């Protein structure tokens, strides 16, 4: 998915950042090392006398992959995220992306077709009307951003596992991958895709999902950090191939479970 990196407009729906400079690395300073603590810590982590930043980054990524496994082990497919009363919903709900709100992609509702691919029996595309006809549920859950802040929102849509069942997805596959209108992408583990609260979302707070929150469809999963919840989803694929994602490819932990 290298094309995503070439598309500066394609960015996280959900990773949310009012101030992109805060999140994005300075290209001259891509490496993770900063501050006086680096050298001692590095020497320790790499076991090398001669320390270079690339090898430290390599070791840190290895540990991050280990942490993917640790979180998958900790993930309980039957454990539900806490839910809240309607009065707890944050209104207005914070918009977050590293593009300004007016740059959110505009998806035409009549042209929209959700593409479904990979290890599924039925690869037909879905129009918005067909999607809206699916059974829907509402959840009031907490979105936790990788930055640390959180907000409670109200999302309505179809459990992803119900949709995956209908398209005949191979539940033994490892991943479900999402591609978004802006060029954003992310991928999740199958147990999370099948979690009862993982939802193809069509409404926010009772109204059709507005553009800023991901029209026409986002995928909401309270068991993962906000940036794992893609907006403006155009395509999903069930796959055994690790495809990473926009932020994941830049160093954010892939599993990022809550």
């Amino acid at each position, binding site marked *: 998915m290298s094309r995503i990196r070439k598309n500066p407009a394609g960015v996280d729906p959900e990773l949310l950042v009012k101030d992109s400079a805060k999140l994005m690395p300075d290209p001259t300073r891509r490496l*993770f090392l*900063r501050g006086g*603590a680096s050298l001692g810590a590095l020497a320790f982590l790499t076991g090398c006398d001669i320390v270079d930043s690339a090898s430290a980054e390599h070791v840190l990524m290895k540990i991050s992959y280990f942490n993917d496994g640790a979180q998958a082990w900790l993930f*309980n497919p039957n*454990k539900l995220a806490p839910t809240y009363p309607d009065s707890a919903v944050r209104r207005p709900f914070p918009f977050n992306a590293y593009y300004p709100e007016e740059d959110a992609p505009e998806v035409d509702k009549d042209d929209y077709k959700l593409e479904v691919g990979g290890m599924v029996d039925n690869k037909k595309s879905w129009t918005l009307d067909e999607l809206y006809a699916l059974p829907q549920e509402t959840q009031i859950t907490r979105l936790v951003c990788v930055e640390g802040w959180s907000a409670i929102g109200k999302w309505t849509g179809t459990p992803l596992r119900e949709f995956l069942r209908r398209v005949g997805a191979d539940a033994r596959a490892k991943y479900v991958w999402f591609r978004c209108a802006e060029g954003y992408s992310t991928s999740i583990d199958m147990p999370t895709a099948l979690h009862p609260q993982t939802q193809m979302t069509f409404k926010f707070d009772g109204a059709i999902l507005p553009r800023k929150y991901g029209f026409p469809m986002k995928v909401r999963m309270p068991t993962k950090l906000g940036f794992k919840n893609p907006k403006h989803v155009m395509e999903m694929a069930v796959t055994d191939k690790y495809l990473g994602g926009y932020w994941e490819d830049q*160093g954010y932990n892939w599993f990022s479970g809550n």
Partner: protein
Amino acid sequence: MSIGATHDQALTPAAPTGAIVHPLWVRLTHWTNAVAMVVMIGSGWEIYNASPLFPFVFPRGITLGGWLAGALLWHFAAMWLLAVNGLVYLLLGIATGRFRRKLVPIRPGEVLADARAAFIGKLAHDDLSVYNAVQKLLYLGVIVAGIVIVLSGLAIWKPVQLQELTAAFGGYDAARYVHFFAMAVIVAFLVIHVVMALLVPKSLRAMITGR
């Protein structure tokens, strides 16, 4: 040997030559913890900066990671070191009786008297194997802060899978504040601890060589 020894530690003569003040496991876990803490604090400050709880941020020059993703990689790597090493330290501290011998009892009167003596420069450090009341309070306090920072960190990291723990801290947002204040306590301890080690260099030597 002192005949009138009243303290079990007094069987080790004051300022001995050759007596072990800190056994090897204490020294190993101490320095491992020092590395882990520095990495956790430096990367934690960078993570804090992404969504500050208070109207200030930490200067970039003293944070670790360069940007949020880098800081998170450091934080979630060093957490294993901090937690496993901390657990080993706690288990050995209890099993060997070291905590019981060295850190308790703490009597408020002694703390006040020793604190007063320390401020006027009259608190003796002749026998490194015996902690004064202020030391006991600080060492026990930082152990408690260490436990709190690990638990509150888990509560923030896994507010769904460990939601009972998160609820025990008063919810996700409250746990972030607890995590921050536990950090502040540890950093305050660290400042005092390093200053004291420099003022009493033989204590630093003892933590390296054991004697």
